[in-house]
């Protein structure tokens, strides 16, 4: 018994109180993509930043459980669904900042100002340059038609990127049409769903299927290693057809200030800096993502894919419908 008490007491020992200006970040964006950004800020302003990485789910549980005792000042995470969920659980507080509003387009931030998109991740069509002509491609929705029977490869529906895409379809196309399209996709699968976007691109390259949906930075990274990859990228839904998504489906990585931060001013200053051109350049291009601000210069690899029209509906709409999207995908048997 004494042993357990000892262990418990040790677990409870008060952590050293952080210096007044030190910021603490909980992040599901991994160290390699985030640390250079933190280091730059520390160098410029002298504000030290310490951080812990983990998956979104545990980070949210942790923030909730810690309540007012949390050491975290900011939460940086990926995907609209996670950001929406964080806001719903009340762990993020609204920030009214002219700088953030000016730097970040309205559809990429919370209508109630609790989270702000910092980089764009476009989920688009990739196709085999050997077996598909770009003229055959048009929209996400068209991949559900019989022309693509046994030619489609997709990642698992357990990945949040697919959940957000289907969530956005629910918001824009309604439940019936969305279910019909997603059912069509699943019927066209050439292989069981894959564990990663990389595998989808590799399957297309290896000739197992002809088209798939992936986030562009996976494709960009692979292109960097194999410039002669027989897979190309296509921007769908550019014509603005009725009853279709209004452009390329985009998602964000983003951040918010925690409800119980003790360093609100310093945290807001950091968040504003993250939306500045300088930070955006680092934040987005480190991973071949797109900056949220259209002013920022792109990495040559991403720039080569040309401009595209984004779906302009607010991402909160996708987050709100993520759980419904998952149920829909369960119903149509998308594993």
């Amino acid at each position: 018994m004494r042993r357990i008490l000892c262990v418990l007491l040790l677990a409870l020992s008060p952590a050293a109180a952080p210096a007044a200006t030190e910021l603490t970040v909980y992040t599901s964006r991994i160290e390699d993509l985030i640390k250079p950004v933190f280091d730059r800020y520390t160098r410029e302003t002298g504000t030290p930043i310490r951080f812990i990485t983990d998956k979104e789910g545990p980070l949210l549980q942790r923030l909730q459980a810690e309540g007012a005792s949390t050491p975290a000042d900011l939460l940086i995470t990926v995907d609209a669904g996670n950001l929406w969920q964080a806001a719903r659980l009340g762990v993020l507080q609204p920030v009214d900042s002219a700088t953030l509003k000016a730097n970040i387009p309205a559809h990429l931030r919370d209508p109630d100002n609790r989270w702000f998109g910092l980089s764009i991740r476009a989920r688009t069509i990739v196709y085999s340059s050997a077996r598909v002509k770009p003229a055959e491609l048009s929209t996400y929705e068209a991949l559900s038609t019989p022309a693509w029977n046994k030619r489609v490869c997709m990642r698992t529906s357990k990945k949040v990127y697919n959940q957000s895409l289907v969530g956005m379809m629910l918001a824009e196309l309604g439940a019936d049409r969305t279910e019909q399209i997603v059912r069509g996709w699943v019927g066209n699968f050439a292989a069981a769903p894959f564990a990663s976007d990389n595998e989808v691109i590799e399957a297309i390259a290896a000739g197992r299927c002809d088209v798939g949906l992936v986030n562009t930075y996976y494709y960009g990274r692979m292109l960097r290693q194999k410039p002669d990859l027989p897979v190309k990228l296509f921007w769908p839904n550019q014509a603005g057809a009725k009853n279709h998504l209004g452009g390329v489906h985009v998602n964000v990585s983003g951040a918010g200030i925690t409800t119980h931060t003790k360093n609100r001013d310093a945290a807001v200053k950091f968040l504003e800096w993250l939306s500045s051109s300088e930070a955006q350049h680092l934040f987005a291009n480190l991973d071949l993502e797109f900056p949220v601000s259209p002013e920022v210069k792109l990495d040559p690899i991403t720039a080569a894919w040309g401009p595209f029209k984004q779906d302009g509906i607010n991402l909160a709409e996708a987050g709100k419908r993520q759980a419904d999207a998952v149920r829909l995908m369960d119903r149509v048997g998308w594993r």
Partner: protein
Amino acid sequence: MALTRWPLIAVALALPTLVPLVAALSSFTRLDADLWSHLSEYVLPHVLPTTVLLLIIVSAGVSILGTALAVLVALFEFPGRRVFSWALLLPMAVPAYVLATVFVGTLDYSGSVATFLREHTGLLLPDLRNLAGVSLVLIAALYPYVYLVVRSSLAGQGARVLEAARSLGLSPAQAVLRVALPLSAPAIFGGTLLAAMETLADFGAVSAFNVDTLASAIYKAWFALFSIDAALQLAGVLLALVLVLLVLQSRVQRARRVATSAGPPAQRRPLGAIGAGLACATCSLVVALAFIAPLIQLGIWSARNLRDLDARVLAAGLNSLLLGSIAAASIVGIALLLGYASRRAPGRVVTAATRTATLGYALPGALLAVGLYVPLAALIAHINQWLGWGLMLQGGLALMLLAYAVRFTAVAHAPVIAGLSRIRPSLDEAARLAGHTGLGQLARVHLPLLRPGLAAAAALVFVDVMKEMPITLMTRPFGWDTLAVRIFELTSEGQWQRAGLPALAIVIVGLVPVVWLVRHLDSGSRERGSAA
């Protein structure tokens, strides 16, 4: 130490495990009927049969493979036996999620080996991303649990027993089947139970194959359907499965309670030419598939990303080593106390406490971490509110070790119990008469006899902690990144090739205890041999 204290100690050691268990059970008061009708219509009918089938295939696979290899190495002589006796333990250092990714990355349609075979020989490999594929990987990753425990149960006494059986006119096969295996039954079932629980808790390997099990459904309910309650309820279903396994195991152990004394090892029986060839080929194949091939692939990936070999990887390696050692020492201590409690004060209380303390192994790590962390953090938030204190549950090392203990006590418990069961109770009486009681008896009489079991327990815990990901992620203090954390970081953004380096480092650091264990086991049996 008075007899009545043992039940108290056992109960105290089981308390931390009760926290997540109570969290799982109490979630049933918050059933979401709508969500459950979805789960029971579209999710459970698929994942439950898959989970049970996976459990059966992997359990059968690891018990047959692990036992067969242990019998070969412990009781028979064939070319390469000495090397295989330790080489067969090496796959223990390869995390299942790493092995799974390597298998998919090489043998799936667009994998390197599959592509090479298709383009140069026209050979089309069977589809791998299914139940059969993930079963194969889990068997390859988990058989060492059975092999290790059975091997140490046969070491020293097995060959002697076999000799006695032979002298009674049994053929070698009969002697193994009718004498050696029944003697090792507790070890076989103990090891298999560990592998079965690990299979239930596995999330990494099944994700790489995109095979949906109960564990994946738990994560789906939590991360995608945003219902931690539904996740905990599904964990309750998973615990029910574990209880079935535990009841099965206790039946077997009750039926097979045997105690033999350690003594001089007898000569191993040489195998004939064909038998020796087969034994050698089988062992080679297992080591090649489960260890050498994945090591080569990891080596190739690492070589492409050598720039990642920096101070950070070294620091992470050091953290892994340190955490593994501390955890191994403390958890083996807990297992020893539990084992001792059931020896000195057998009864319902101790049995229930032991069962509870070993349940944590079947819980998916992330859920266990949350089940432990959230109630504790909430408690502290309350205390702070009450007293105006500023306490923080900032993932202290102690909390991390507590979580490891909840998860891995089962791992240490199995070999310790197997060791204790082979010490005759009459020896306790003799020691008592000689004036050795309580902890003195443990130290002077039992510990020397238990050494192989304790070494096995420590090595298993060490390697498991090295490979552990979700608990480490959630409870590590600032700056305590381990090699597994590095793998998480790289793989969460799909950079598997770069994860090759930390994965290789895990395997290499994980080899340290395995090699240490092998030397320990061998020297242990030599000492016993010369003492006689």
